[in-house]
């Protein structure tokens, strides 16, 4: 806190025993910045609505006002830099504790030092924000690979459970890659979904969605993929620790080959064995035929 008081001093800000409460939206947070500047006061905490409030501070409700938010937002690239605007946006999507206060402090610093703040990587506030954003970006990047779609007739759907709010980070990638497809990526943690149809896309609130049962063709491709996954590892080089560090276990739940809704690999193997005993190994050709059949049925 010492740092803020010092900086506040030069800006003639009053450290106050206040907490701000806002509606939890990005615009709402920008209004907190507006408020803080208007009254030259520094809140000790910023809470979003409905969040547990630990400190016994006098709380002030900050109303979200589009125009105020826009004024603050416009000033960031002008008075700091366009990169700072991106950093603030991504910082807001991260799940770092007390991100609001962190962003507020970063903006105080930015409005004081201007463009230079982006180089102040050794400053505690800048460092903490960079780290939070780095973490969000890293998780977003991991999800470019870890998202697993299931094909349900003409549409595809995937469920993810990320720590950060990463849908906006991965949106462009998937919408560009699957331009011609209709798909949905459902973020269970934040209860939102990215919906895409050719030519249209949006992130919308959605809660309690569960994926439908996979059809035969979908099951077949899941088995093929799980089989591929197990065949590609070299057993002489088995290295659980390395795997878990590159692909942490919390991602496994929604990945077909690890633990997906297709059941544990052992089960898939047992099913395969049974199938092999009963009939000649299915070829991909026959699989395609059955896929075509199910497609005409639906």
């Amino acid at each position, binding site marked *: 806190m010492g740092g803020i008081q010092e900086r506040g001093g030069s800006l003639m800000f009053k450290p106050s025993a206040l907490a701000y409460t806002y509606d939890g939206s990005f615009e709402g947070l920008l209004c907190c910045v507006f408020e803080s500047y208007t009254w030259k006061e520094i809140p000790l905490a910023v809470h979003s609505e409905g969040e547990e409030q630990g400190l016994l501070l006098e709380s002030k409700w900050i109303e979200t006002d589009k125009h105020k938010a826009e004024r603050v937002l416009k000033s960031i690239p002008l008075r700091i830099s366009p990169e700072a605007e991106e950093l603030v946006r991504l910082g807001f999507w991260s799940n770092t504790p007390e991100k609001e206060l962190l962003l507020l402090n970063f903006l105080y610093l930015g409005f004081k030092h201007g463009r230079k703040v982006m180089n102040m990587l050794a400053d505690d506030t800048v460092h903490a924000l960079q780290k939070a954003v780095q973490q969000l970006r890293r998780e977003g990047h991991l999800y470019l*690979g870890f998202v697993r779609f299931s*094909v349900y007739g003409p549409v595809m759907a995937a469920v993810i459970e990320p720590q950060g709010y990463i849908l906006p980070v991965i949106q462009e990638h998937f919408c*560009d*890659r699957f331009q011609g497809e209709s798909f949905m990526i459902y973020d269970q943690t934040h209860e939102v979904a990215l919906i895409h149809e050719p030519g249209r896309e949006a992130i919308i609130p959605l809660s309690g969605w569960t994926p439908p049962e996979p059809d035969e063709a979908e099951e077949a491709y899941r088995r*093929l993929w799980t089989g591929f996954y197990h065949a590609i590892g070299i057993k002489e080089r088995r290295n659980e620790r390395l795997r878990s560090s590159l692909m942490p276990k919390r991602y496994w739940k929604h990945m077909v080959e690890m633990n997906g809704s297709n059941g544990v690999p052992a089960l898939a193997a047992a099913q395969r064995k049974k199938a092999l005993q009963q009939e000649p*190994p299915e070829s991909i050709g026959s699989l395609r035929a059955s896929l075509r059949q199910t497609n005409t049925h639906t």
Partner: protein
Amino acid sequence: MEKLEILTASAKYDVACTSSGSDRKGQAGSLGSTAAMGICHSFAADGRCISLLKVLMTNACVYDCAYCVNRKSNPVRRAAFTPEEIADLTMQFYRRNYIEGLFLSSGIMRNPDYTTEQLISALELLRNVYHFNGYIHVKAIPGADDVLLSRLGLLADRMSVNIELPSQESLGILAPDKSKISILKPMGLIKDKIKENSSDIVKYNHAPRFAPAGQSTQMIIGASPDTDYQILNLTEGLYRKYSLKRVFYSAYTPVIEDSLLPSLDTKPPLLREHRLYQADWLLRFYGFQANELLDEAVPNFNPLLDPKCSWAVNHREQFPVEINRAPYEMLLRVPGIGVRSAQRIVKARRAATLDFHALKKLGVVLKRAQFFITCKGKPLEGLKVSEHTLLRSLMSGQQLAPYQPAQVEQLTLFDDHYAAALPAAGGWAEFKKGAEA
């Protein structure tokens, strides 16, 4: 299903896994895009990344290379995919986001030309009929006709020819059907095509791109007696002469009994492979040259120190460097400072003078870097530089654990084996002086 597993198991020793180097946006009417930084879609139980559907067209091969699981004389089950099956699997896996694209290789069917034609028909189906716009890595078959290889290169993002063994002698013994010439010829062709094509792109906007992600190769480590020095020199030559994008190293995993090869119970030399990758990084991103890292006198990497630490310990006259003044190139040579942290240092020192506390926040591994740097002219307070502390700090036992065989005899600090990395007698006092000055 079974077929996929056979042809995957046969391809798994190919280590190239990256999907990087091509940057292509999605297109209306086609499926897929490529990302310059590459995307790993999963990680196998051995910890290696899976980004491509890595399969062979067939594991039936007319060649008899001793190290290869698919050699003619090895009694394994054989299978083959049709081009349609390859294309279908790729599309279906890609839609589900299991993969970033296809890695297609093959055993030699009949002859190199026929095999290449098969590869071409699979890729033509994918690109022209299924409109697949994702990543494709294809193996160039040594000995195939130039015209066929050129057609193949126009369909793929990356093309590679495996060097397999680091010297002509080893190749002669273990892969009698291949020769240095047969491998380097297609490599040269690919290089020339890429070069020629990049000038075409300037002339004609719509010239199709020839292997836009470049070419790579791999060699097997530990199947032949070649030294790290030979391997690294060869690598450097490949980067320079053939403009390769990547050289991969594959610790030899014994798959067949052969009097010419290490016995079946030999553990793959994973630590050696790891050291070579570290050195490869130093060549590509840190401005090092092969002969700075190794020479005829010390032809192999130290198992206990990484190549950069080894180099630094042997070049104490260049240290310590002052963090607030040293050029970027010199920062990169400090153990414990990587490309990212060096960039951050350069950026952050424009805003403020840096101290040790700040370096930690920038991602510098002080445990290693402390012996080689000063901040504002001073070394880290309380820093003791003795043989013992320095070497202990530079050796990262825990990090190396995964690469060590489970039961290895305990290597002692003063083993002959790595005495080469130890500074000459008397050097320590000077080094300490240097660090305190």
